[in-house]
């Protein structure tokens, strides 16, 4: 896992929302690297900053959000030092996005085919001959299991939700991007269409060699699709690790542990799903130390005081947690942590 070239590198990225009275930091000092053959999942609860982070990759944070600091490197080129026109050209040609609102991300009064043409016209260097671009789009449509040429004459309103999501995915690939970013690709779809979208993404990755980065709160989709998982909590990255570490290794961040415990287990029907006590802190009322400390069963005094750093190699296991990191540095064993001097009780 994680071999190949680094296609996307995010370094110390922070995104602020400038409100009339305050500035809220929605994404706080986040770093991660995506390699060519990763399927990268950004996981977290609503409001943890994962969608904002995805949008920040191509400077598409909706107002009043602004990138406060940090770098985004596309195959080594810093997006943050590009001119506006260079960023425009990189959009979709290098990183293509499928927004959470894929259902409404097409212009309702223009046919899908015309919108493909608008894209081709804006990026003449990718498909100098527009006809070839359109044929490639038909080919992509077939790859996402839709009847090719027939979709082009349609309007967005003539497609069902599941069809729209797949058309949006095919659409995003038309300029052969190296990275495909999907925000909640399976949310708002029924299970049949969820399955279909997951299969389609696996296919595209295999056949087109596109690196898939997706944002989700659904751990079952992560289990199906991802090879790398980055978990966010209240604007911070709390753990980055390969999928197996997240699901099978016990050295996970207490928040990740809690997330996993909140999923009902079909193999152990007797075991009830547990919700995480407390709430995600508001961005204007962040606790001083670790942001998860007030809800954490392992929290100690140091957690309430000091902000933990993300320590470790993300290809192995990088965690931002005081007790866990102390434990890891003491012995690289696979033991589950026993709450010791926990302040919240277990």
């Amino acid at each position, binding site marked *: 896992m994680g071999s190949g070239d680094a296609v996307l590198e995010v370094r110390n990225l922070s995104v602020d929302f400038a409100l009339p009275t305050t500035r809220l930091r929605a994404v706080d000092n986040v770093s991660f690297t995506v390699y060519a053959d990763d399927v990268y999942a950004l996981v977290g609860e609503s409001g943890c900053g994962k969608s904002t982070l995805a949008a920040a990759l191509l400077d*598409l944070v909706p107002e009043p959000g602004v990138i406060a600091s940090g770098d985004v490197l596309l195959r080594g080129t810093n997006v943050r030092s590009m001119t506006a026109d260079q960023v*425009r050209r990189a959009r979709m040609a290098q990183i293509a996005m499928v927004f959470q609102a894929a259902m409404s991300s097409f212009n309702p009064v223009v046919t899908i085919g015309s919108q493909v043409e608008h894209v081709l016209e804006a990026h003449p260097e990718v498909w100098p001959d527009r006809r070839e671009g359109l044929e490639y789009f038909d080919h992509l449509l077939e790859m996402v299991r839709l009847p090719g040429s027939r979709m082009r004459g349609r309007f967005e309103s003539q497609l069902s939700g599941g069809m729209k999501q797949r058309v949006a995915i095919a659409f995003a690939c038309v300029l052969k991007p190296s990275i495909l970013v999907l925000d909640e690709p399976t949310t708002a779809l029924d299970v049949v269409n969820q399955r279909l979208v997951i299969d389609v993404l696996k296919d595209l990755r295999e056949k087109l060699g596109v690196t898939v980065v997706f944002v989700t709160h659904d751990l079952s989709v992560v289990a199906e699709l991802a090879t790398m998982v980055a978990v966010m909590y209240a604007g911070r990255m709390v753990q980055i690790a390969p999928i197996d570490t997240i699901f099978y290794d016990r050295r996970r961040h207490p928040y990740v542990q809690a997330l996993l415990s909140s999923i009902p287990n079909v193999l152990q029907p007797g075991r009830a799903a547990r919700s995480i006590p407390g709430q995600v802190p508001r961005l204007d009322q962040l606790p001083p130390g670790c942001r998860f400390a007030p809800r954490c069963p392992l929290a100690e005094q140091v957690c309430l005081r000091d902000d933990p750093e993300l320590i470790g190699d993300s290809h192995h296991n990088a965690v931002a947690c005081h007790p866990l990191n102390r434990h890891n540095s003491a012995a690289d064993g696979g033991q589950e942590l026993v709450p010791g001097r926990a302040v919240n009780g277990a």
Partner: protein
Amino acid sequence: MLSYILRRSLISFFVIFVVISGSFFLVRMMPGNPMQVLYQQLVQQGGLTPQEIDAEIKVYYGLQPHGPLLSQYFQYLADVAQGNFGRSIAVSSATVAHIIKQALPWTVFLSAASLLVTFVLGILIGTIMAAFRKGAMAKVLTLVTSFFSAVPAYVSALILIWQVAAIHHFFPAQGAYSPSVPVGFNLAFIGSVLDHAVLPVTAAVITGFGGWALMMKGSTTSTMGADYIRASKSWGLTQRRITQTYIGRNSMLPIVTNLALALGGLFGGALFIETFFTYPGVAYYMVQAIDNRDYPVMMGCFIVVTTATVLANFLVDLFYPLIDPRIARPGGAARGAAERRKSEAAEQATAQPGVAA
């Protein structure tokens, strides 16, 4: 499609029929009648006893209203169906058709000129407000447009008549053209018509442009916040393309609807404007007819206004699908939906047998 037009035409005729019937009885229910209006006029002139006045009225009209209201109604319907709108009661020897034929061109000219200026100015200001919606200028413009859209037409008309016409004599405040110029296609006449149109048009624009501007601003702002605008940015489209095809076309949709409906209003004329500027349009005659209880002229004007509005609505329904494909084509609506369901089902069955099964 043809059956749709037929159906809509029948509905339109029905609406016109209902309005004719309703206004026929409403008009008759108004206190007073043409005889009483004449009676009052003669009383005010003085010098006549009530008996003499009664006799005068009978001589003047040479008739007594006869027949019950219901039979008058059916008679009127039969006349209208044959294109006969009757004669004016107040203006002797004028048929209603003749009055309307004379008044309509003036109304259409004045309303069209007002609408054109109002619309262009409103859309322009609205677009500027939406484009620079964060700046101080947009705040000022919003305030100004809100203020003007709240000014009633009679206030703007009165202020213009008082300031521009009465005090400074910049433009005439009465009539459609100067009586001293020969009527016809000559420079003096056209100049006089334009000269006389300045104040009424200005009065209409002052009260009208604010509404269009605020509508345009609202429509554009909400379109700019749409998901597909953000998506189109992520596609790396040029700003020009996004503005034209993505923001522009979508934000114009509600504006086009309103414009089409405003076109229906062209024939009704602006009540206050035409009255204040004694502009000889449909609305002017309508108000006069109401004052004189001139039933046939009133009814004629109502029919013109109603027909124009109904026709405009009909045309909007007919042509709207061309600019907004989400509105099903007339007659094609059911087929479109069925087609979608069918293709979806076929797709599920053939493309992913594993999943569908």
